[in-house]
Protein backbone atom coordinates (compact mmCIF):
# COMPACT_ATOMS: atom_id res chain seq x y z
CA UNK A 1 0.00 0.00 0.00
CA UNK A 2 1.10 3.53 -0.67
CA UNK A 3 2.73 5.24 2.23
CA UNK A 4 3.06 8.95 2.60
CA UNK A 5 6.39 8.91 4.40
CA UNK A 6 8.16 10.10 1.26
CA UNK A 7 6.42 13.48 1.34
CA UNK A 8 7.87 16.19 3.56
CA UNK A 9 6.04 16.99 6.76
CA UNK A 10 5.38 20.57 5.75
CA UNK A 11 3.51 19.67 2.53
CA UNK A 12 0.04 21.19 2.48
CA UNK A 13 -1.60 18.61 0.29
CA UNK A 14 -1.68 14.86 0.35
CA UNK A 15 0.44 13.09 -2.26
CA UNK A 16 -1.36 12.38 -5.53
CA UNK A 17 -0.74 8.65 -5.26
CA UNK A 18 -2.55 8.50 -1.92
CA UNK A 19 -5.43 10.51 -3.33
CA UNK A 20 -5.77 8.21 -6.31
CA UNK A 21 -5.59 4.96 -4.36
CA UNK A 22 -8.20 6.39 -1.97
CA UNK A 23 -10.83 5.92 -4.64
CA UNK A 24 -9.93 2.30 -5.31
CA UNK A 25 -12.45 0.82 -2.93
CA UNK A 26 -11.59 -2.78 -3.68
CA UNK A 27 -8.12 -2.15 -2.26
CA UNK A 28 -9.32 -0.48 0.94
CA UNK A 29 -8.48 -1.92 4.28
CA UNK A 30 -11.57 -3.38 5.95
CA UNK A 31 -10.96 -0.88 8.72
CA UNK A 32 -11.56 2.03 6.36
CA UNK A 33 -14.79 0.47 5.12
CA UNK A 34 -15.97 0.14 8.73
CA UNK A 35 -14.86 3.67 9.61
CA UNK A 36 -16.57 5.16 6.58
CA UNK A 37 -19.77 3.28 7.44
CA UNK A 38 -19.65 4.49 11.05
CA UNK A 39 -18.94 8.04 9.88
CA UNK A 40 -22.10 7.88 7.73
CA UNK A 41 -24.15 6.61 10.66
CA UNK A 42 -22.68 9.25 12.96
CA UNK A 43 -23.44 11.98 10.44
CA UNK A 44 -27.04 10.78 10.24
CA UNK A 45 -27.32 10.68 14.03
CA UNK A 46 -25.81 14.17 14.46
CA UNK A 47 -27.96 15.44 11.59
CA UNK A 48 -30.98 14.76 13.77
CA UNK A 49 -29.62 17.16 16.39
CA UNK A 50 -30.38 20.66 15.17
CA UNK A 51 -28.21 23.21 16.95
CA UNK A 52 -30.51 25.99 15.82
CA UNK A 53 -32.70 26.80 12.83
CA UNK A 54 -32.05 29.94 10.83
CA UNK A 55 -35.03 32.25 10.56
CA UNK A 56 -35.27 31.84 6.77
CA UNK A 57 -35.13 28.04 6.91
CA UNK A 58 -31.97 26.01 6.64
CA UNK A 59 -30.62 24.74 9.92
CA UNK A 60 -27.23 24.37 11.50
CA UNK A 61 -26.28 20.87 12.56
CA UNK A 62 -23.09 18.93 13.13
CA UNK A 63 -23.68 16.38 10.39
CA UNK A 64 -20.49 17.45 8.58
CA UNK A 65 -18.30 16.75 11.58
CA UNK A 66 -17.92 12.96 11.08
CA UNK A 67 -17.34 13.40 7.35
CA UNK A 68 -14.63 16.01 7.94
CA UNK A 69 -13.17 13.84 10.68
CA UNK A 70 -12.94 11.02 8.15
CA UNK A 71 -11.45 13.42 5.59
CA UNK A 72 -8.77 14.44 8.09
CA UNK A 73 -7.93 10.86 8.99
CA UNK A 74 -8.32 9.02 5.71
CA UNK A 75 -8.08 11.59 2.95
CA UNK A 76 -10.08 12.52 -0.10
CA UNK A 77 -11.32 9.18 -1.47
CA UNK A 78 -12.90 7.67 1.65
CA UNK A 79 -14.38 11.05 2.64
CA UNK A 80 -15.94 11.73 -0.74
CA UNK A 81 -17.36 8.22 -1.02
CA UNK A 82 -18.74 8.29 2.52
CA UNK A 83 -20.18 11.75 1.87
CA UNK A 84 -21.92 10.63 -1.29
CA UNK A 85 -23.38 7.62 0.50
CA UNK A 86 -24.50 9.79 3.43
CA UNK A 87 -26.35 11.93 0.90
CA UNK A 88 -28.08 8.82 -0.45
CA UNK A 89 -29.00 7.67 3.06
CA UNK A 90 -30.47 11.10 3.76
CA UNK A 91 -32.79 10.70 0.80
CA UNK A 92 -34.61 7.90 2.60
CA UNK A 93 -34.62 9.58 6.02
CA UNK A 94 -37.60 11.75 6.93
CA UNK A 95 -37.24 15.38 5.99
CA UNK A 96 -35.54 14.82 2.64
CA UNK A 97 -36.61 17.45 0.21
CA UNK A 98 -37.08 16.50 -3.44
CA UNK A 99 -38.71 18.45 -6.20
CA UNK A 100 -36.53 17.71 -9.20
CA UNK A 101 -34.23 14.77 -10.05
CA UNK A 102 -31.20 17.00 -10.67
CA UNK A 103 -31.90 18.91 -7.46
CA UNK A 104 -32.09 15.67 -5.47
CA UNK A 105 -28.69 14.57 -6.79
CA UNK A 106 -27.08 17.97 -6.19
CA UNK A 107 -28.52 18.62 -2.74
CA UNK A 108 -27.79 15.20 -1.31
CA UNK A 109 -25.16 12.81 -2.75
CA UNK A 110 -23.14 15.40 -4.65
CA UNK A 111 -23.24 18.11 -1.96
CA UNK A 112 -21.94 15.78 0.74
CA UNK A 113 -19.43 14.11 -1.56
CA UNK A 114 -18.09 17.62 -2.20
CA UNK A 115 -17.49 17.99 1.55
CA UNK A 116 -14.86 15.29 1.13
CA UNK A 117 -12.73 17.75 -0.85
CA UNK A 118 -11.46 18.74 2.59
CA UNK A 119 -9.47 15.50 2.47
CA UNK A 120 -7.03 17.03 -0.01
CA UNK A 121 -5.31 18.97 2.77
CA UNK A 122 -3.09 17.31 5.37
CA UNK A 123 -4.51 18.65 8.63
CA UNK A 124 -1.19 19.08 10.39
CA UNK A 125 -2.08 22.35 12.11
CA UNK A 126 -5.17 24.10 13.32
CA UNK A 127 -4.89 26.61 10.50
CA UNK A 128 -4.63 23.97 7.77
CA UNK A 129 -7.56 22.10 9.22
CA UNK A 130 -9.62 25.27 8.99
CA UNK A 131 -8.62 25.66 5.34
CA UNK A 132 -9.67 22.04 4.77
CA UNK A 133 -13.06 22.72 6.37
CA UNK A 134 -13.47 25.82 4.22
CA UNK A 135 -12.69 23.78 1.11
CA UNK A 136 -15.29 21.18 2.03
CA UNK A 137 -17.86 23.84 2.76
CA UNK A 138 -17.08 25.56 -0.54
CA UNK A 139 -17.74 22.32 -2.39
CA UNK A 140 -21.03 21.84 -0.61
CA UNK A 141 -22.02 25.46 -1.18
CA UNK A 142 -21.37 25.11 -4.92
CA UNK A 143 -23.75 22.13 -5.12
CA UNK A 144 -26.53 23.76 -3.10
CA UNK A 145 -26.10 26.93 -5.14
CA UNK A 146 -26.57 25.06 -8.43
CA UNK A 147 -29.60 23.27 -7.07
CA UNK A 148 -31.01 26.64 -6.02
CA UNK A 149 -30.68 27.87 -9.57
CA UNK A 150 -32.52 24.76 -10.82
CA UNK A 151 -35.26 25.41 -8.30
CA UNK A 152 -35.83 28.92 -9.59
CA UNK A 153 -35.54 27.84 -13.20
CA UNK A 154 -38.25 25.23 -12.78
CA UNK A 155 -40.59 26.81 -10.23
CA UNK A 156 -40.23 30.58 -10.49
CA UNK A 157 -38.76 31.33 -13.91
CA UNK A 158 -39.42 35.06 -13.82
CA UNK A 159 -37.75 35.76 -10.50
CA UNK A 160 -35.09 38.45 -10.64
CA UNK A 161 -31.49 37.75 -9.59
CA UNK A 162 -32.09 34.14 -8.48
CA UNK A 163 -28.35 33.57 -8.09
CA UNK A 164 -28.13 36.21 -5.41
CA UNK A 165 -30.94 34.66 -3.43
CA UNK A 166 -29.54 31.13 -3.83
CA UNK A 167 -26.11 32.28 -2.70
CA UNK A 168 -27.21 34.24 0.36
CA UNK A 169 -29.73 31.62 1.46
CA UNK A 170 -27.12 28.88 1.46
CA UNK A 171 -24.32 31.01 2.89
CA UNK A 172 -26.50 32.09 5.80
CA UNK A 173 -26.60 28.60 7.28
CA UNK A 174 -23.45 27.08 5.78
CA UNK A 175 -21.09 29.77 7.06
CA UNK A 176 -22.08 29.37 10.75
CA UNK A 177 -22.03 25.61 10.29
CA UNK A 178 -18.50 25.84 8.85
CA UNK A 179 -17.25 27.99 11.70
CA UNK A 180 -18.75 25.76 14.39
CA UNK A 181 -17.52 22.59 12.70
CA UNK A 182 -14.00 23.99 12.33
CA UNK A 183 -13.98 25.03 15.99
CA UNK A 184 -14.99 21.56 17.14
CA UNK A 185 -12.97 19.45 14.73
CA UNK A 186 -9.50 20.32 15.99
CA UNK A 187 -10.07 19.49 19.70
CA UNK A 188 -11.88 16.37 18.55
CA UNK A 189 -8.97 15.18 16.40
CA UNK A 190 -6.48 15.94 19.17
CA UNK A 191 -8.56 14.10 21.77
CA UNK A 192 -8.94 11.14 19.45
CA UNK A 193 -5.21 11.04 18.80
CA UNK A 194 -4.55 11.14 22.55
CA UNK A 195 -6.94 8.23 23.10
CA UNK A 196 -5.50 6.15 20.25
CA UNK A 197 -1.86 7.19 19.87
CA UNK A 198 -1.23 4.45 17.29
CA UNK A 199 -4.04 5.41 14.94
CA UNK A 200 -2.99 6.94 11.63
CA UNK A 201 -4.12 10.55 11.56
CA UNK A 202 -2.27 11.39 8.41
CA UNK A 203 -4.53 9.38 6.15
CA UNK A 204 -2.36 6.45 5.31
CA UNK A 205 -4.66 3.94 3.70
CA UNK A 206 -3.34 0.78 5.29
CA UNK A 207 -4.29 0.07 8.87
CA UNK A 208 -1.51 0.48 11.37
CA UNK A 209 -1.47 -2.76 13.29
CA UNK A 210 -3.31 -5.33 11.22
CA UNK A 211 -3.26 -5.63 7.51
CA UNK A 212 -5.02 -7.93 5.14
CA UNK A 213 -3.39 -11.21 4.26
CA UNK A 214 -1.64 -11.79 7.53
Amino acid sequence: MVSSTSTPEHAWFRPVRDVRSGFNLAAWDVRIIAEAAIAIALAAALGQLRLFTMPQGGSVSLEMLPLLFLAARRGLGPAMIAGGLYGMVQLILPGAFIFHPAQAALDYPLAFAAVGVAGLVRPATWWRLSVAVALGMGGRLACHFLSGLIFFASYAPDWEAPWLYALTYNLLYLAPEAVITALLLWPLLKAYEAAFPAGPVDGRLSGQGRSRGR
Partner: protein
Amino acid sequence: MGRGPTIGQYFPGDSWLHRLDPRAKIVATVALAIALFTRDAWAALAVYATLAAVGLVVSRVPPSFVWRGLKPLVWLLVLTFVAQLFFARGEPLAELGPLRITREGLETAGLLSVRLVVLVVIGLLLTVTTPPIPLTDGLAWLLRPLRAIRVPTEELAVMVTIALRFIPTLLAEVQSIMMAQRARGADFSHGGPIRRARALVPVLVPLFIISFRRADELALAMEARCYEPGQRRTRLHPLRAGRRDAVLGVIVAAAIGVAAVI
Protein backbone atom coordinates in the same frame (compact mmCIF):
# COMPACT_ATOMS: atom_id res chain seq x y z
CA MET B 1 -34.85 12.66 17.84
CA GLY B 2 -37.11 10.40 19.82
CA ARG B 3 -38.83 9.08 16.73
CA GLY B 4 -38.99 5.56 18.03
CA PRO B 5 -37.02 2.53 17.05
CA THR B 6 -37.53 2.58 13.28
CA ILE B 7 -35.25 4.72 11.21
CA GLY B 8 -36.08 6.08 7.82
CA GLN B 9 -39.62 6.29 6.65
CA TYR B 10 -40.42 2.59 6.72
CA PHE B 11 -43.81 1.65 8.09
CA PRO B 12 -43.90 -2.04 9.01
CA GLY B 13 -46.71 -3.90 7.33
CA ASP B 14 -47.72 -6.88 5.25
CA SER B 15 -49.58 -5.30 2.35
CA TRP B 16 -49.28 -6.23 -1.32
CA LEU B 17 -46.86 -3.36 -1.78
CA HIS B 18 -44.78 -4.41 1.23
CA ARG B 19 -44.32 -7.88 -0.20
CA LEU B 20 -43.08 -6.74 -3.61
CA ASP B 21 -39.44 -7.21 -4.54
CA PRO B 22 -37.54 -4.00 -3.73
CA ARG B 23 -35.99 -4.03 -7.20
CA ALA B 24 -39.41 -4.00 -8.84
CA LYS B 25 -40.51 -1.11 -6.64
CA ILE B 26 -37.39 0.94 -7.36
CA VAL B 27 -37.73 0.46 -11.12
CA ALA B 28 -41.45 1.34 -10.98
CA THR B 29 -40.77 4.48 -8.91
CA VAL B 30 -38.01 5.72 -11.18
CA ALA B 31 -40.07 5.02 -14.30
CA LEU B 32 -43.05 6.90 -12.89
CA ALA B 33 -40.90 9.85 -11.77
CA ILE B 34 -39.37 10.19 -15.23
CA ALA B 35 -42.78 9.84 -16.87
CA LEU B 36 -44.14 12.58 -14.60
CA PHE B 37 -41.43 14.97 -15.70
CA THR B 38 -41.70 14.20 -19.42
CA ARG B 39 -45.43 14.73 -19.85
CA ASP B 40 -47.17 17.43 -17.85
CA ALA B 41 -50.74 17.53 -19.07
CA TRP B 42 -53.69 17.46 -16.70
CA ALA B 43 -54.99 14.16 -18.12
CA ALA B 44 -51.64 12.43 -17.67
CA LEU B 45 -51.32 13.86 -14.17
CA ALA B 46 -54.76 12.51 -13.31
CA VAL B 47 -53.65 8.99 -14.30
CA TYR B 48 -50.57 9.18 -12.08
CA ALA B 49 -52.49 10.77 -9.22
CA THR B 50 -55.03 7.94 -9.35
CA LEU B 51 -52.24 5.38 -9.34
CA ALA B 52 -50.58 7.07 -6.34
CA ALA B 53 -53.90 7.22 -4.47
CA VAL B 54 -54.59 3.53 -5.14
CA GLY B 55 -51.06 2.78 -3.97
CA LEU B 56 -51.68 4.62 -0.71
CA VAL B 57 -54.86 2.65 -0.08
CA VAL B 58 -53.24 -0.68 -0.95
CA SER B 59 -50.21 0.02 1.26
CA ARG B 60 -52.50 0.41 4.32
CA VAL B 61 -50.18 3.06 5.74
CA PRO B 62 -51.98 5.43 8.11
CA PRO B 63 -52.58 8.93 6.66
CA SER B 64 -50.73 10.55 9.56
CA PHE B 65 -47.58 8.73 8.50
CA VAL B 66 -47.95 9.94 4.93
CA TRP B 67 -48.58 13.46 6.16
CA ARG B 68 -45.29 13.38 8.06
CA GLY B 69 -43.53 12.81 4.75
CA LEU B 70 -45.45 15.56 2.99
CA LYS B 71 -45.09 18.22 5.67
CA PRO B 72 -41.68 19.57 4.61
CA LEU B 73 -43.19 20.26 1.20
CA VAL B 74 -45.83 22.67 2.36
CA TRP B 75 -43.77 25.85 2.17
CA LEU B 76 -42.37 24.85 -1.21
CA LEU B 77 -45.89 24.33 -2.49
CA VAL B 78 -46.98 27.73 -1.20
CA LEU B 79 -43.92 29.43 -2.65
CA THR B 80 -44.31 27.73 -6.04
CA PHE B 81 -47.95 28.57 -6.16
CA VAL B 82 -47.45 32.21 -5.28
CA ALA B 83 -44.44 32.64 -7.58
CA GLN B 84 -46.24 31.13 -10.54
CA LEU B 85 -49.45 32.92 -9.79
CA PHE B 86 -47.99 36.39 -9.75
CA PHE B 87 -44.93 36.21 -11.95
CA ALA B 88 -46.08 34.31 -15.01
CA ARG B 89 -46.91 36.37 -18.07
CA GLY B 90 -50.20 35.96 -19.89
CA GLU B 91 -53.79 36.98 -20.02
CA PRO B 92 -54.68 38.84 -16.80
CA LEU B 93 -57.57 37.55 -14.69
CA ALA B 94 -57.33 39.92 -11.76
CA GLU B 95 -55.08 42.79 -10.78
CA LEU B 96 -54.00 43.91 -7.36
CA GLY B 97 -51.74 46.91 -7.61
CA PRO B 98 -48.50 45.73 -9.22
CA LEU B 99 -49.54 42.08 -8.79
CA ARG B 100 -51.39 40.43 -11.59
CA ILE B 101 -52.94 36.98 -11.63
CA THR B 102 -52.96 35.45 -15.07
CA ARG B 103 -54.80 32.47 -16.48
CA GLU B 104 -51.55 30.86 -17.53
CA GLY B 105 -50.05 31.54 -14.13
CA LEU B 106 -52.96 29.90 -12.37
CA GLU B 107 -52.77 26.88 -14.60
CA THR B 108 -49.00 26.34 -14.29
CA ALA B 109 -49.19 26.92 -10.55
CA GLY B 110 -51.84 24.21 -10.24
CA LEU B 111 -50.04 21.84 -12.57
CA LEU B 112 -46.67 22.18 -10.84
CA SER B 113 -48.16 21.79 -7.38
CA VAL B 114 -50.14 18.67 -8.27
CA ARG B 115 -47.14 17.17 -10.04
CA LEU B 116 -44.96 17.80 -7.01
CA VAL B 117 -47.41 16.16 -4.62
CA VAL B 118 -47.84 13.13 -6.90
CA LEU B 119 -44.07 12.79 -7.26
CA VAL B 120 -43.52 12.89 -3.53
CA VAL B 121 -46.33 10.43 -2.80
CA ILE B 122 -44.90 7.96 -5.32
CA GLY B 123 -41.45 8.27 -3.76
CA LEU B 124 -42.98 7.91 -0.32
CA LEU B 125 -44.76 4.69 -1.34
CA LEU B 126 -41.34 3.19 -2.03
CA THR B 127 -39.66 4.22 1.20
CA VAL B 128 -42.71 3.61 3.38
CA THR B 129 -43.22 0.02 2.21
CA THR B 130 -39.56 -1.04 1.92
CA PRO B 131 -37.20 -1.35 4.91
CA PRO B 132 -33.91 0.49 4.32
CA ILE B 133 -31.71 -2.58 4.09
CA PRO B 134 -33.68 -4.45 1.38
CA LEU B 135 -33.89 -1.08 -0.37
CA THR B 136 -30.09 -0.89 -0.37
CA ASP B 137 -29.81 -4.50 -1.56
CA GLY B 138 -32.22 -3.81 -4.39
CA LEU B 139 -30.39 -0.69 -5.42
CA ALA B 140 -27.04 -2.47 -5.33
CA TRP B 141 -28.45 -5.24 -7.52
CA LEU B 142 -29.82 -2.76 -10.04
CA LEU B 143 -26.50 -0.93 -10.18
CA ARG B 144 -24.57 -4.15 -10.78
CA PRO B 145 -23.95 -3.36 -14.46
CA LEU B 146 -21.77 -0.49 -13.20
CA ARG B 147 -19.28 -3.09 -12.01
CA ALA B 148 -18.26 -3.36 -15.65
CA ILE B 149 -16.80 0.15 -15.39
CA ARG B 150 -15.24 -0.81 -12.04
CA VAL B 151 -17.73 0.89 -9.74
CA PRO B 152 -17.57 -1.18 -6.54
CA THR B 153 -21.34 -1.38 -5.99
CA GLU B 154 -21.02 -4.33 -3.61
CA GLU B 155 -18.68 -2.53 -1.21
CA LEU B 156 -20.77 0.64 -1.34
CA ALA B 157 -23.85 -1.39 -0.43
CA VAL B 158 -21.97 -2.95 2.49
CA MET B 159 -21.12 0.51 3.83
CA VAL B 160 -24.69 1.77 3.54
CA THR B 161 -26.05 -1.38 5.19
CA ILE B 162 -23.65 -1.05 8.12
CA ALA B 163 -24.46 2.67 8.43
CA LEU B 164 -28.21 2.01 8.46
CA ARG B 165 -27.73 -0.68 11.07
CA PHE B 166 -25.82 1.69 13.36
CA ILE B 167 -27.87 4.89 13.07
CA PRO B 168 -30.30 3.93 15.88
CA THR B 169 -27.44 2.64 18.03
CA LEU B 170 -25.47 5.85 17.68
CA LEU B 171 -28.55 8.00 18.25
CA ALA B 172 -29.08 6.20 21.54
CA GLU B 173 -25.41 6.71 22.30
CA VAL B 174 -25.69 10.48 21.70
CA GLN B 175 -28.67 10.68 24.02
CA SER B 176 -27.09 8.73 26.83
CA ILE B 177 -23.82 10.70 26.68
CA MET B 178 -25.76 13.97 26.73
CA MET B 179 -27.72 12.76 29.74
CA ALA B 180 -24.53 11.72 31.50
CA GLN B 181 -22.95 15.13 30.90
CA ARG B 182 -26.13 16.93 31.99
CA ALA B 183 -26.03 14.94 35.19
CA ARG B 184 -22.54 16.37 35.72
CA GLY B 185 -23.81 19.90 35.19
CA ALA B 186 -23.35 20.46 31.45
CA ASP B 187 -25.67 22.98 29.85
CA PHE B 188 -26.50 22.61 26.18
CA SER B 189 -29.36 25.01 25.76
CA HIS B 190 -28.07 28.40 26.87
CA GLY B 191 -25.71 30.97 25.41
CA GLY B 192 -24.87 31.97 21.87
CA PRO B 193 -24.14 29.55 19.04
CA ILE B 194 -20.39 29.42 19.73
CA ARG B 195 -20.87 28.76 23.41
CA ARG B 196 -23.44 26.11 22.68
CA ALA B 197 -21.11 24.44 20.23
CA ARG B 198 -18.27 24.53 22.77
CA ALA B 199 -20.54 22.88 25.30
CA LEU B 200 -20.80 19.94 22.94
CA VAL B 201 -17.10 19.05 23.05
CA PRO B 202 -17.55 16.83 26.14
CA VAL B 203 -20.31 15.00 24.25
CA LEU B 204 -18.54 14.70 20.91
CA VAL B 205 -15.21 13.41 22.21
CA PRO B 206 -16.62 10.30 23.92
CA LEU B 207 -19.10 9.84 21.08
CA PHE B 208 -16.40 9.78 18.41
CA ILE B 209 -14.10 7.61 20.47
CA ILE B 210 -16.84 5.07 21.19
CA SER B 211 -18.03 5.10 17.59
CA PHE B 212 -14.68 4.69 15.92
CA ARG B 213 -13.58 2.09 18.43
CA ARG B 214 -16.73 0.26 17.40
CA ALA B 215 -15.67 0.61 13.77
CA ASP B 216 -12.38 -1.01 14.69
CA GLU B 217 -14.11 -3.92 16.39
CA LEU B 218 -16.44 -4.25 13.44
CA ALA B 219 -13.52 -4.41 11.03
CA LEU B 220 -11.95 -7.12 13.17
CA ALA B 221 -15.22 -9.08 13.18
CA MET B 222 -15.54 -8.73 9.42
CA GLU B 223 -12.00 -9.91 8.86
CA ALA B 224 -12.57 -12.83 11.21
CA ARG B 225 -15.46 -13.85 8.94
CA CYS B 226 -13.24 -13.56 5.87
CA TYR B 227 -14.78 -10.41 4.47
CA GLU B 228 -12.53 -9.12 1.70
CA PRO B 229 -13.24 -5.94 -0.25
CA GLY B 230 -13.36 -6.69 -3.95
CA GLN B 231 -14.56 -10.27 -3.49
CA ARG B 232 -18.02 -11.60 -4.28
CA ARG B 233 -20.39 -12.01 -1.36
CA THR B 234 -23.36 -14.27 -0.84
CA ARG B 235 -26.50 -13.17 0.95
CA LEU B 236 -28.46 -14.50 3.89
CA HIS B 237 -31.72 -13.42 2.26
CA PRO B 238 -31.35 -13.44 -1.52
CA LEU B 239 -33.84 -11.25 -3.38
CA ARG B 240 -36.50 -13.18 -5.28
CA ALA B 241 -38.85 -11.64 -7.81
CA GLY B 242 -42.21 -13.32 -8.37
CA ARG B 243 -45.52 -13.01 -10.17
CA ARG B 244 -46.51 -10.07 -7.98
CA ASP B 245 -43.62 -8.04 -9.35
CA ALA B 246 -44.63 -8.80 -12.94
CA VAL B 247 -48.13 -7.55 -12.11
CA LEU B 248 -46.65 -4.30 -10.80
CA GLY B 249 -44.65 -3.94 -14.01
CA VAL B 250 -47.78 -4.39 -16.12
CA ILE B 251 -49.75 -1.85 -14.05
CA VAL B 252 -47.03 0.79 -14.24
CA ALA B 253 -46.40 0.22 -17.96
CA ALA B 254 -50.15 0.46 -18.61
CA ALA B 255 -50.42 3.70 -16.63
CA ILE B 256 -47.50 5.28 -18.49
CA GLY B 257 -48.94 4.09 -21.81
CA VAL B 258 -52.40 5.48 -21.06
CA ALA B 259 -50.93 8.79 -19.84
CA ALA B 260 -48.87 9.09 -23.00
CA VAL B 261 -51.82 8.79 -25.37
CA ILE B 262 -54.64 10.67 -23.63
